């Protein structure tokens, strides 16, 4: 009699466990899908700071970035990209690509004081990134060309604030 009761309990418990496992696995799959979308296809990023004025606002914009084209080497001149900062790996910076490998470019050494200029050639596998706001941007003029592998995404659209919705070109 007792054994029968234990058996029926076991059956009940098994049913509950199966159900719980099914629910948990659905949630886990969903989280995995979110991660893959966010890492490999498209994600939204909140960017702020003065370095990309006037393209991006000072107070903070939400932009959509896609993570496909940099994996296939399809980053071109003039693209706004998300780059892991070479000085602090925990920070991401948004800059514009101004030179690809092999390009020779000249920039003003210090735009505030004078017009002395420096000329560089971007080495193999590197890109030259610069903010649109020459006066308040820490970029390749300070830390030199950055490796292509530090690029993490290409900005596509601005989605917030709504009145500025549109492509970033």
């Amino acid at each position, binding site marked *: 009699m007792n054994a029968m009761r234990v058996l029926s309990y076991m059956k009940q418990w098994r049913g509950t466990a199966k159900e719980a496992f099914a629910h948990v696995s659905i949630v*886990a*799959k969903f*989280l*995995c*899908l979110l*991660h*893959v979308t966010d*890492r*490999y296809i498209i994600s939204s990023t909140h960017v702020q700071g003065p370095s990309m004025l006037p393209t991006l606002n000072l107070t903070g914009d939400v932009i959509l970035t896609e993570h496909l084209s940099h994996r296939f*080497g399809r980053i071109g001149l003039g693209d706004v990209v998300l780059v*892991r*900062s*070479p*000085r*602090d*790996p*925990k920070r991401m910076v948004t800059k514009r690509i101004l030179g690809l490998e092999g390009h020779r470019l000249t920039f003003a050494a210090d735009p505030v004081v004078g017009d002395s200029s420096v000329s560089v050639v971007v*080495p*193999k*596998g*590197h890109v030259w990134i610069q903010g649109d706001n020459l006066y308040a941007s820490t970029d390749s003029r300070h830390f030199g060309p*950055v*490796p*292509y*592998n*530090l690029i993490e995404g290409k900005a596509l659209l601005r989605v917030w604030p709504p009145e500025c919705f549109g492509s970033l070109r």
Partner: protein
Amino acid sequence: MGIQNLLWQVAKKSFTGSIIGLTISDRCCSVVPVRGDSMSPTFNPQKNSYLDDYVLVDKFCLKDYKFARGDVVVFGSPTHYRDRYIKRIVGMPGEWISSSRDVIRVPEGHCWVEGDNKTSSLDSRTFGPIPLGLIQGRVTRVVWPPQRLGKIS
């Protein structure tokens, strides 16, 4: 009808499997082969063996980018964007390194990597210090071939 159903089931299963696999390999750990003999006493000790070592790469260290001198890391090549290298961290930011030509200071946010096999290794002695942001994980142990299974020093 039956065949179509089966194909659909297989496609669904493989899609789910691949996204779970990708997530695990990005967030927690992955297994990568070691090519070449640039890390020779540690990985691929026999020359010209057709069996490459496979190593387990821990990804949890990417949360705060904390590394120590002596860690073996996987990083994206600074010169060829498709390649990945496995090397040992020899110098941390702020330290002084004597390379073949002169003594240089490793800049902030960078590290100095070198292979264990100094004679045939393409490393920081060629391309200079690399940004910590290029690092994709820390190698913790060898998982294949089975007789070499074990932690690395």
